[in-house]
């Protein structure tokens, strides 16, 4: 098992409900499912060259969660000098669960919450694998 931690970084885009889903899924993973193994950090700090944020990203694993195809989380992590070990878009989960569309940015609704459940469980599984050296 790796000694490293996993930083799950959502894009937190303010314009789309899918970004809210990504953010909520992040919180579910780092607070409820894997509180001892995963944490989050503010994406903007990376771009503004905050040393503490840069050190965390450099020395640990990173999962980037994007709310749309603009891939801001992945791109900003890469711009900080590191490709995330795992990168997903909320849309990839939506493609598999078309009936679970989030409703609105401020309240993602029942469908959105179920999507958060599914997404966070799958992410937690991938993170466990990553820490164990698997897929």
């Amino acid at each position, binding site marked *: 098992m790796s000694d490293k931690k996993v930083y799950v970084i959502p894009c937190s885009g303010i314009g789309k409900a899918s970004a809210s889903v990504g953010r909520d899924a992040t919180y579910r993973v780092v607070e409820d499912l894997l509180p001892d193994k995963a944490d989050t950090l503010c994406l903007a700090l990376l771009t503004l060259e905050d040393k503490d944020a840069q050190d965390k990203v450099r020395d640990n694993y990173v999962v980037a969660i994007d709310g749309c*195809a603009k891939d801001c989380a992945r791109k900003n992590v890469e711009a900080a000098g590191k490709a995330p070990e795992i990168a997903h878009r909320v*849309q990839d989960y939506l493609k598999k669960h078309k009936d679970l569309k989030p409703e609105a940015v401020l309240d993602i609704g029942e469908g959105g919450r179920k999507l958060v459940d599914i997404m966070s469980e799958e992410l937690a599984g991938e993170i466990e694998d990553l820490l164990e050296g698997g897929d």
Partner: protein
Amino acid sequence: MKGEGKVVLPCNGLDKEAGALAREAALRLVDGGAKLVCPVLFQRNPTRYEKEIGAGELLVIDGCKTGCASKLAKEKGLKIASRLNVSEMLKEMGIKSGKAPLPDPERLTRLLAALEDLSEGETKRTEDAPPGLFAADVEMNEFTEGKFIFRVPNAGYFFNENDCWARVEGKRARLGVSDYVQQSASDMVFFEPPEVGKELEQFDDAGALESTKTALDIISPVSGRVMAVNRELVEAPELINQDPYISGWAVEVELADFESDRGLLMDCDTYLAYLKDKVKKENAERYG
């Protein structure tokens, strides 16, 4: 496994079973008539496989989410006709791939059986446009409303009032939805193309799209026969959001009677003016 007409580019994953499975799948396709592109040699010497790549449809096989083979293909500007991801396929089958780098025989058998089913169920080969069509660069006009920039090509496209476009070249046209549609509908997550060979009347449905916000049909601006569908769009509907007028094309048709159809369409300049007015009115209605 059927491989005729295919050119297969597998990943070269040595540290995971999924990479070994990808390699095995590729080799079985080569047994079935496909041409193989070695990813390592291709990276060093891209011209080595020029002839093979030009003569078939490219199938990329990735072992895992890292997607090295897909990234290599994109980096080298290759047109990917279809894509397989071994880890995802196994996951859908409820199988977890192993950590050891050598392929487990049982997992390999089950994967190959699934691939065999896939290749038999493949839709019939589409008829691609003669080379050179739809290859020219397209210049855009744009206008801004608030922080949103709306783009419309400056020539060669014709629009209907459903904000769908036809890019006409000779006797063929490519169809798609405008930048306004992708901005309004938000992120596309699903594209269901029409059947190749289908005859379309002007304003018939030419495929279905679904975004995170809504479902919509592509309303064909022209009449004609469907000759090809954009398979990359089926795999990655977000291409419409990224590039709605070029790589986000949905359907290609052989035109039936464009001279007649064009009377009910807007050219680029007319559509630009129409769209400016439409966006202004929508904002006024929404915000008073």
